[in-house]
């Protein structure tokens, strides 16, 4: 097919996916969708190959092909009818973690199945041990909320009421969940109708042929990119500081990247055996993280679809921290282990493609979740709050400041919305000066959010990282700043971490801490590592860093040998 038609159809399908996301954002009840945009939307062909995707959440983008294919193994296409919508979140069957709910709807034209509209979203409340789904101390999947195998939540256009009842009986906020699930359905409904318009305009045969050619085109472009990388075996290792259960035990993410010709094999076989606590990744996470890293190192203009992924093979041995076996816990794998895997792959490739890799980013979403009963309304509330981090310096620029980690692309909730929806008052929100690792290109800075509890009680849990091992620098760049979570109990004067204040086994992963009215919490996000020798940083850039408040004069003197004129 001519490349013009293929490109027009590609752009059209990507626009459909973006519009699906806008519908989801505007119709959802929870801030995790309406503000944080923790979802992604795509279109898939009959095999489950991703044809197009919107640029929302990268972990879900890379996870989409395996998710849809896994569902089609259990509900084959001949059992799917017009108007059906399939729901799935099972981490052991291609899923990413229990909160990630996948919806997909068949697209029928004249009774012929042409493909699927897909929406994946992070449902913020899934039941389990803690409000908000992120139990930092879980030791089995059953602590982490309800697990849904591929089921039809709608059959022939009508609600499957029994499925709805089961789902909503197992969560703390059924009304909000109902609204968010409906928003995901609205997204796939729109994806179906818009795609049908496109098929009507171009015809079934043109649509099918263009879809095939589009996948092949992306594969060719990706292979050409990989050809340009020097062949070799590249290794790197990074660490996760805690699983929230085994005190003071660290876990290794080890990767060997085998690059030969136009193919790449990513082998995680040196990684730790799976943890007792909830930091394990699933096969979906291991696969998605590999795709994410490769996409970061290659031409961003290549259409994002399953064709890009054909030259990439992922080896994630079972029973390891990157491919958890049943019934191991896994909720933090998608948020904490995924970015650590991406960083490890980028670290491995730092000498092979120095212009396309970066130093370590903060590598955590903070994952501060809380819930409770509102003292004024008597209603149960829940929030999944995301924080930005500093990103690593690159060969051509400083790291991004205070943005969501590499697999999220989510937005922190604005303070005005946060304070309106939840019983906290934010007292302080500011960049952390000197938290970006020094380098010729400085790491991005993290930030601190301090807030006071206004409710009688809020039950808090967290799954974060980089309280112990700082984000590493590259090619002589220095490490970025550490993160922290601190509490100042009402009537006291000493800020304490979660070990000191509540006897938790980890400062970064904990569950069901009861914060009382008047207690203060301080969430500090890590900065990014620096890139290149700090001695090579331009003097005017250092002066500007001081002027803008990214670096203190004292820090500039220490890290860069800077002296004011």
């Amino acid at each position, binding site marked *: 097919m001519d490349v013009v038609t293929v490109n027009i159809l590609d752009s059209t399908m990507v626009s459909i996916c973006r519009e699906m996301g806008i519908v989801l954002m505007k119709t959802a009840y929870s801030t995790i969708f309406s503000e944080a945009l923790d979802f992604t939307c795509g279109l898939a062909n009959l095999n489950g190959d991703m044809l197009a995707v919107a640029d929302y959440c990268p972990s879900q983008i890379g996870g989409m092909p395996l998710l849809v294919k896994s569902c089609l193994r259990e509900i084959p296409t001949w059992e799917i009818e017009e108007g059906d919508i399939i729901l799935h979140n099972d981490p052991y069957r291609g899923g990413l973690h229990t909160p990630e709910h996948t919806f997909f709807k068949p697209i029928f034209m004249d009774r012929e199945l042409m493909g699927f509209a897909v929406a994946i979203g992070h449902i913020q409340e899934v039941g389990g041990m803690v409000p908000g789904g992120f139990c930092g101390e879980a030791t089995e999947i059953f602590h982490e909320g309800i697990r849904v195998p591929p089921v039809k939540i709608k059959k022939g256009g009508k609600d499957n009421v029994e499925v709805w009842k089961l789902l909503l009986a197992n969560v703390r906020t059924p009304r909000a969940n109902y609204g968010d699930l409906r928003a995901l359905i609205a997204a796939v409904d729109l994806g179906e109708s818009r795609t049908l318009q496109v098929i009507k305009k171009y015809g079934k045969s043109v649509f099918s042929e263009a879809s095939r050619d589009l996948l092949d085109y992306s594969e060719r472009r990706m292979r050409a990119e990989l050809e340009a990388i020097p062949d070799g*075996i590249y290794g790197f290792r990074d660490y996760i500081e805690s699983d929230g259960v085994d005190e003071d035990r660290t876990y290794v993410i080890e990767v060997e990247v085998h690059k030969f010709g136009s193919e790449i094999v990513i082998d995680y076989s040196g990684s730790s055996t799976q943890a007792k606590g909830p930091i394990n990744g699933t*096969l979906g996470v*291991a696969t998605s993280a590999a795709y994410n890293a490769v996409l970061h190192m290659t031409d961003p203009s290549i259409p994002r679809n399953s064709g890009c992924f054909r030259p990439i093979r992922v080896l994630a*041995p079972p029973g390891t921290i990157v491919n958890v076996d049943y019934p191991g816990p896994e909720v933090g794998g998608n948020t904490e282990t995924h970015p650590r895997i991406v960083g490890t792959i980028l670290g491995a490739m730092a000498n092979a493609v120095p212009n396309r890799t970066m130093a370590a980013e903060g590598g955590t979403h903070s994952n501060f979740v809380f819930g409770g009963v509102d003292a004024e309304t008597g209603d149960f509330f829940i929030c999944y709050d995301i924080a930005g981090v500093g990103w690593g310096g690159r060969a051509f620029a400083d790291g991004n400041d205070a943005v969501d980690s590499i697999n999220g692309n989510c937005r922190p909730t604005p303070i005005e919305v946060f304070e309106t929806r939840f019983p906290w008052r934010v007292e302080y929100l500011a960049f952390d000066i000197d938290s970006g690792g020094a380098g010729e290109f400085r790491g991005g800075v993290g930030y601190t959010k301090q807030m006071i509890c206004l409710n009688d009680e809020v039950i808090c849990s967290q799954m974060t990282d980089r309280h112990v091992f700082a984000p*590493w620098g590259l090619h002589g760049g220095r490490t970025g700043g550490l993160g922290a979570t601190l509490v100042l109990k009402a009537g006291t004067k000493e800020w304490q971490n979660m070990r000191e204040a509540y006897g938790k086994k980890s400062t970064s992963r904990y569950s069901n801490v009861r914060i009382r009215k008047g207690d203060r919490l301080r969430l500090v996000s890590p900065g990014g590592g620096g890139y290149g020798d700090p001695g090579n940083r331009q003097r005017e850039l250092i002066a500007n860093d001081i002027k803008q408040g990214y670096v203190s004069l004292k820090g500039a003197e220490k890290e860069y040998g800077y002296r004011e004129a």
Partner: protein
Amino acid sequence: MRFSENGLYVERYTKCATCGALIYHQEKQQLLTCDGVIYCSQWCIDWKKAREARRSKPQNTTMSLSSQE
């Protein structure tokens, strides 16, 4: 992955020892085993053998780094 006879629940999750892919029960006839371990393909068996041979020799990666070194 093996389902119960009534198809309502999973009795066992079976994965390839090299790549970790889930192996469905209906594919069991095509399963490959080597030294009592299950693999999804000959490629995965060959890769594991090659990896073991390579790792028995020191310093054979182009670069070996650690974030903490």
